[in-house]
């Protein structure tokens, strides 16, 4: 049995998107910046993609900028708002403790350059409080950046409320919607954000392509200098096949959203109920306000990497914290932020399902995960100490 359960890391390219990719590469090989017919045909295709992506997000085509993905979009939004703020003497940036590193490391860099960075805490449910955002905003605030949905524990943040606060207080608002777009309804006007980052490979599109929504009038400066592509805000010949494939992937994801959501909620309920039966385990993040595909757990007395390796041997691809965190020895900053102590955070498992997963997959997961957890506990000196009372259970 093989179960791919790491859709938050990346998704398989949708068949229809792969087809569009190949067709576009063959039929639209021109450079959209070229004046001749072949170039203009590519330009038209690019415009069509921009319009369709804009439509799918409730935006205007002029508000969509194509990028290389989520990281670039996050970087550009934050750096643009920060430098705009700095010019007006506003050097305070507000975000949360559970953002992706694409946001956190950009903020770190700005902090070293003299910006004040405030990372708001989240509750044990992994959700930031809009009141905390409101209280943190002052006259020096240049930007609020709060992700729409968390990549590790799947929690959905109250971005509409935060957007309303930011508009009322006249502060720019960026949301990293990389995990949300294509999975839950996302409408930029409803959120009321100035920037929104998305990445194609999280919803069945190709890797290395994404977009940044920038509300008309919000400041935007280029990260990459050169030609006048993307209205002078992002130089470099556009990857049209990837952009077209992303457009198709987003269209299809949104068209299928109702059915996918129903399936994933059902699988999630079953998975959470089943994994909760493992003694001394806990679900990470709010039980209800979470992405339909995300199930994150901590199991006391074991370590996540060995759990992943053994699951991989059984044909299960999962993750422990963010895939980007695998090189680090410290447990995930998100798990620490929701109050999991180090000992417990090390034993985390993230199962993220997608539309091709089935109930049989979940049955299999519920068979092998308890087995592997029990096996690892059996050789764990920590588990022995917990059993003999030398160490107190945390979960």
């Amino acid at each position, binding site marked *: 049995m093989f179960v791919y359960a790491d859709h938050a890391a990346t998704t398989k390219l949708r068949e229809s998107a792969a087809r569009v990719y190949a067709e576009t590469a063959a039929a639209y090989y021109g450079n959209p910046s070229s004046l001749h017919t072949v170039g203009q045909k590519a330009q038209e295709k690019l415009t069509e993609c921009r319009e369709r992506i804009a439509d799918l997000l409730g935006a205007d085509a002029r508000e969509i900028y194509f990028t290389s993905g989520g990281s670039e979009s996050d970087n550009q939004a934050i750096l643009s708002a920060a430098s705009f703020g700095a010019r007006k003497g506003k050097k305070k940036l507000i975000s949360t403790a559970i953002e992706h*590193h694409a946001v956190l490391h950009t903020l770190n860099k700005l902090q070293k350059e003299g910006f004040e960075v405030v990372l708001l805490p989240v509750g044990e449910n992994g959700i930031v409080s809009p009141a905390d955002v409101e209280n943190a905003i002052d006259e020096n605030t240049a930007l609020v950046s709060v992700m729409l949905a968390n990549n590790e524990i799947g929690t959905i943040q109250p971005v509409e409320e935060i957007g309303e606060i930011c508009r009322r207080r006249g502060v720019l608002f960026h949301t990293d919607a990389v995990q949300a777009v294509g999975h839950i309804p996302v409408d930029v006007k409803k959120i009321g954000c100035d920037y929104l980052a998305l990445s194609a490979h999280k919803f069945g599109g190709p890797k290395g392509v994404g977009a940044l929504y920038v509300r008309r009038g919000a400041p935007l400066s280029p990260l990459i200098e050169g030609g006048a592509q993307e209205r002078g805000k992002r130089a470099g010949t556009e990857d049209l096949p990837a952009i077209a494939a992303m457009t198709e992937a987003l269209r299809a994801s949104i068209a299928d959203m109702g059915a996918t959501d129903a399936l994933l909620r059902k699988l999630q309920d079953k998975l959470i109920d089943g994994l909760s039966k493992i003694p001394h385990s806990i679900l990470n993040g709010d039980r209800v306000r979470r992405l339909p595909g995300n199930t994150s757990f901590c199991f006391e*007395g*074991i*370590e996540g*990497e*060995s759990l992943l*390796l*053994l699951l*991989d*041997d059984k044909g299960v691809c999962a993750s422990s914290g963010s895939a*980007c*965190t*695998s*090189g*680090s*020895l*410290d*447990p995930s900053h998100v798990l620490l932020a929701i109050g999991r102590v*180090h*000992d417990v955070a*090390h034993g985390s498992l993230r199962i993220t399902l997608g539309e091709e997963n089935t109930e049989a997959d979940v049955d299999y997961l519920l068979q092998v995960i308890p087995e592997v957890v029990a096996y690892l506990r059996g*050789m*764990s*000196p*920590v*588990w*022995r100490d917990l059993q003999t009372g030398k160490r107190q259970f945390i979960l």
Partner: protein
Amino acid sequence: MSLYSEKVMDHFRHPRNVGVIEDADGVGEVGNAKCGDIMKMYIKVENGILTDVKFETFGCGSAIASSSMATEMIKGKPISEALQLTNKAVTEALDGLPAHKLHCSVLAEEAVQAAVLDYYKKNNIPYDEAQFKCALCAHEHDHDGENV
């Protein structure tokens, strides 16, 4: 997964000498749950020879494989030889470890020393402190910290 060598995966999948020795002559535990790896080593000693060795490990693939390999390398050997065991030797026997995983193998060397030290102390056997640098200082391991 190709993060680890075949040797590492073999020891990780089929750890040798895993378990507990109830009437152990020496027990050593090193590491801490905060850094993510804890290793416990149990030894049985007869006439200065490690007649039996068992381990329990809470940790990553590298930590489990290193403990397993370390027990194989010292089992049946005189204590004097076991104390010579280095993490470098364990790592080499495992056909290498990724750079950011080397620190986990240090625990194996320390766990062996800690178990022997416990045996010496329990039996009032005089020992040379210089031989137990690692086990005595209980130092924190360097962490790579940053992500890739």
